[in-house]
């Protein structure tokens, strides 16, 4: 009862500095957890986002550009490949399925991707999950001017079955580049939490033969999404296309290529993590400073407690515990900061890439970061606690006694 009372009253007496210090700890803790979660979750989410394919075949370019363009629907297409290249890989005995895609148009910034209806019929975009349409929708027909909208694009553009639109040329939206063709939305995909949600899918021939496109490339495709029968085939085809050939690029395995991207930007993670650690350190320092600065005002109270029979170690413990309690208050508030920050970051990532970061997903960092913060604050409390420990009772009480 004594210790909680002493801590509670001390926090009340120094309410303003308690709130400010706990606030800085909350920011530090929230930031630390958020950086960590975004780092780990995005790495997992991106490397697991394959759209159900093992590899991508495209024009000669970097594997990363190919994967970003064909799977994540980011970046420009590195170039086209001939229909014969598609047919060749499709016929390869090691290939289970090959789906061509063609890009080059958009609808108000959302990418139009031409493909075959088989994508929606046979491909599992994640283990055990096939594309599904919202009630009343259907997949477009091969040669028709019909479209299936991804859930996020549909929500943003207000697309639903029956709505018509004109595509715009290029991957970036420019009002002046409107195509003459009119497409009708025939279905909206249910959310997949993958980049496919940000795409408006139309028949492959639609992109290939769109007015204004080069007629000489009317049978070309931008990339081929490949499912292999066995992983070993991937290395064989890697050798075939990348080492022995010099015209095409075979990006395999998709997950590893994205992991390499994270490896390249690891320095950025490290900088963010370092910043978060520094903020945590500064917060612990602010606990030290705030309690230490209040020590002069509290010396008399501490001397009175000593005169009442409180032992030095009780006083020392009370100050350390108080620092830990400030840390705990900050850490608890840190969860609010964490969830708010993460929700904002997750929304941004989803808007930009279609990849979903789970805000409510449990991570060990959510336990050990606040605990470490509390420990750090308690450590910060040791210096003022030592000052309190040394309070000379008779001298401190003497001037007024």
């Amino acid at each position, binding site marked *: 009862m004594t210790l909680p009372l002493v801590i509670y009253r001390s926090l009340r007496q120094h309410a303003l500095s308690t709130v400010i210090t706990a606030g800085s700890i909350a920011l530090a803790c929230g930031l630390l957890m958020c950086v960590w979660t975004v780092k780990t979750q995005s790495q997992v989410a991106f490397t697991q986002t394959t759209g159900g394919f093992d590899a991508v075949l495209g024009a000669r370019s970097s594997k990363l550009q190919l994967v970003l363009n064909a799977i994540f629907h980011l970046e420009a297409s590195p170039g086209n490949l001939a229909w014969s290249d598609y047919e060749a890989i499709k016929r390869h005995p090691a290939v289970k399925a090959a789906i061509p895609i063609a890009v080059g148009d958009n609808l108000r910034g959302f990418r139009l991707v031409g493909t075959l209806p088989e994508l929606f019929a046979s491909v599992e975009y994640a283990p055990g999950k096939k594309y599904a349409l919202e009630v009343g929708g259907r997949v477009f027909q091969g040669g028709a001017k019909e479209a299936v909208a991804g859930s996020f694009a549909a929500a943003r553009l207000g697309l639903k079955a029956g709505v018509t639109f004109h595509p715009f040329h290029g991957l970036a939206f420019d009002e002046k580049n409107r195509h003459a063709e009119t497409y009708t939305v025939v279905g909206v995909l249910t959310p997949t939490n993958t980049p496919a949600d940000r795409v408006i899918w139309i028949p492959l021939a639609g992109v290939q033969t769109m007015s204004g496109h080069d007629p000489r490339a009317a049978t070309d495709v931008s990339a081929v999404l490949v499912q292999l029968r066995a992983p070993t085939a991937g290395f064989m085809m890697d050798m075939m296309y990348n080492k022995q050939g010099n015209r095409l690029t075979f990006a395999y395995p998709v997950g590893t290529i994205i992991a390499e991207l994270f490896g390249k930007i690891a320095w950025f993670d490290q900088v963010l993590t370092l910043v978060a650690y520094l903020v945590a350190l500064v917060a612990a320092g602010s606990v030290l400073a705030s309690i230490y600065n209040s020590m002069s005002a509290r010396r008399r109270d501490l001397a*009175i407690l000593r*005169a009442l*029979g409180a032992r030095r170690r009780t006083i020392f413990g009370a100050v350390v515990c108080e620092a830990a309690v400030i840390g705990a208050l900050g850490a608890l508030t840190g969860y609010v900061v964490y969830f708010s920050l993460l929700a904002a970051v997750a929304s941004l990532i989803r808007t930009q890439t279609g990849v979903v970061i789970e805000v409510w997903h449990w991570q060990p960092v959510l336990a050990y970061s606040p605990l470490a913060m509390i420990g750090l604050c308690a450590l910060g409390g040791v210096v003022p606690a030592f000052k309190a420990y040394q309070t000379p009772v008779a001298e401190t009480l*003497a001037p007024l*006694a």
Partner: protein
Amino acid sequence: MLAVTALTKSFLSPEGVRNEIVNVPVFGLAAGEQLALRGESGSGKTTFLNLIAGILAADSGRVELGGMVMTALSESKRDRLRAEKLGYIFQTFNLLQGYTVLENVVLGMSFGPRGADRAHAREVLERVGLGHRLDHFPRQLSTGQQQRVAVARALANRPQLVLADEPTGNLDHRSAHEALALIREVCREHGAALLLVSHDEEVLREFELRRDFTEINKAMTEAKR
């Protein structure tokens, strides 16, 4: 109950000279006894009380309190003994300003062996006439009421000895008389001995047993010579 033998304490002056403040060859107090010590400011009486309370460590000598030799104990054991057997009333009361009246008394008890007993703290506060001020803070009380809180805090732990250092120094005559009567009465009820120091003759006259601190403290006698 209290036996002091050859107790000395000196301090180093800013000039580097060691000044002996307390030199008490013999002093004692029986259980339940109430004694007033007359002493002027600077006579070392507060230091003497602090030595008895174990707040200060003596240079030499012996303080025996309730069968325990205070001067032979480590600081932490002196703290424990103080919490267990002593009540201390300061001239300026030394109440904890951030704590309520009840909390001040409860906290005074919590370092002793019986621990915090809110019900008993409430009883003692009612006894000193502050039952209706339990949740007030010291700054919301009059000086006389603050003195009564200090009395309640000193006695709540059922001490064997109450030390009172100029307990009425901040009170007017009427309040001082009432406060003194209360301290003596409550000490009597609790069976606690009372050692009070004061320079106020009116206060001293209220005690049957009273002594000059200068007679007891040889350090001052030597200094005067």
